[in-house]
């Protein structure tokens, strides 16, 4: 299949979810006046006539924070998960991650705000800290489900530790990485908004908070739509990358 066709197909798959949300949103909006829940059409019409000042700058800042925070969490979570499995310390590391998971985001956000002040540090660290446990737990769970049969075969032909990592651990990581990307980015989008609510004076989260305070629901829904569109595009791109270059690692195991 051509790359462009794969991308469009991935995009369409992701768009189905958005479409369902739009239909439900449209349906619910018929029961409420536009100043409470504007319909998708009213939202787009209203915003297109009056785009918020500096929107592209705010959007860029938010994307930077999402991607930076997510990258930190992704690298720490994935490599931390691998190292904990190799060091056979996955159980204590998992316990630590579960403990981290129960820390409320708002409290953590306030702590980061007091430590680092207003700016990018709070949302980035919030994304990293709140996304990390899920990614680390997902990684250790994924590796623990690797094919031990082929790993035993590698031991029987006296493969080195590195060769066992290369032929057994890394292939088992491919679906884990894909699910980490998919799961992690959605969480990162949600958390960055919280971080910008608490400790920023720019970004979509800040705009969202400002619009929320003055009950400008058209703007609120528009920003939510933007965040959803970003998630959709990201999912479509990662789906494209995995389908084109890493598809064989998803082939079923033939026992």
């Amino acid at each position, binding site marked *: 299949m051509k790359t462009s066709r794969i991308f469009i197909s991935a995009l369409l798959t992701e768009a189905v979810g958005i479409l369902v949300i739009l239909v439900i949103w449209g349906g619910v909006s018929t029961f409420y006046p536009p100043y409470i829940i504007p319909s998708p059409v009213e939202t787009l019409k209203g915003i297109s006539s009056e785009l918020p000042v500096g929107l592209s700058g705010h959007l860029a800042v938010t994307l930077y924070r999402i991607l930076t925070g997510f990258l930190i969490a992704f690298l720490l979570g994935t490599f931390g998960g691998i190292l904990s499995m190799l060091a056979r310390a996955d159980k204590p590391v998992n316990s630590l991650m579960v403990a981290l998971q129960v820390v409320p985001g708002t409290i953590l956000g306030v702590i980061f705000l007091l430590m680092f002040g207003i700016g990018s540090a709070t949302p980035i660290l919030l994304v990293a800290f709140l996304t990390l446990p899920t990614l680390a737990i997902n990684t250790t769970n994924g590796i623990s489900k690797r*094919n031990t*049969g*082929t790993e*035993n*075969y*590698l*031991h*029987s*032909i*006296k*493969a080195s530790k590195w*060769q066992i990592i290369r*032929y057994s651990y890394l*292939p088992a990581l491919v679906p884990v990485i894909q699910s980490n990307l998919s799961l992690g980015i959605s969480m990162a989008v949600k958390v960055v908004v919280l971080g910008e609510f608490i400790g920023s004076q720019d970004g979509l989260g800040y705009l969202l908070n400002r619009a929320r305070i003055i009950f400008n629901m058209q703007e609120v829904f528009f920003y939510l739509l933007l965040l959803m569109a970003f998630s959709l595009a990201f999912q479509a791109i990662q789906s494209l990358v995995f389908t084109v270059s890493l598809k*064989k*690692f998803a*082939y*079923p*195991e*033939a*026992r």
Partner: protein
Amino acid sequence: MTPDTIIKTFELSKTYQSHEVIHNLSFELKRGERIAFFAPSGAGKTTLIHILAGLEPATSGSLLVNETAPVVFFQEPRLFPYMTVEENIKLPWRIKKDSWTIQTQLHYQEWLRVCELNAWKNHYPYQLSGGMRQKAALIRGFLGNPALVLMDEPFQSIGQAAKTTIIEFIKRHYPNLAILMATHSLEEIPLLTDSVYYFVSNQLVTPSKLNSFDFQSLFSGLLNPAPVFVPSH
């Protein structure tokens, strides 16, 4: 122990928690010798193969495997799902960083012909039948000209005609190969091996080796087991 000895065990036992899987097993395998371990399912054959291959330790007793690289054929082909048949077969060379010589290539092509896998060498394991996958695993193991192979039900998914052809090919091309084959298929014993040990539960019933043909006829006459039919896929 003579210099000819390739495997020797003395009172080898294996216990999982309170369940003893292998009980005081003592036997010897010489270079070039081909013996079968005939036992019903669950009698500890796979555990024995794993112990001999160094994949798990024995609980007690002593064990000597006088061969650095015995080739193990597991019950399942254990092919890597993300590699083609050819990539799977060539993997041991990549692991050992050995060069793939012209002789190896010629031998490989002969094996592909015997196993009728030539048209399938660029396919992935999930695209193959169970028998084809098992054949690919056999090629991967035999192509390196091993001195000792440990086989755990190696032909269970391969059809009768193909099995006979492959066994004849092995006997013709590897006359000095030492084979220890664990099986519960009576018909495979005289096809590939010269002698047999018979187990029931975790106990060695025959204290000394029996001739494979004698054992087959004796066992068939005594118990009249149902003919073993392995469907071809």
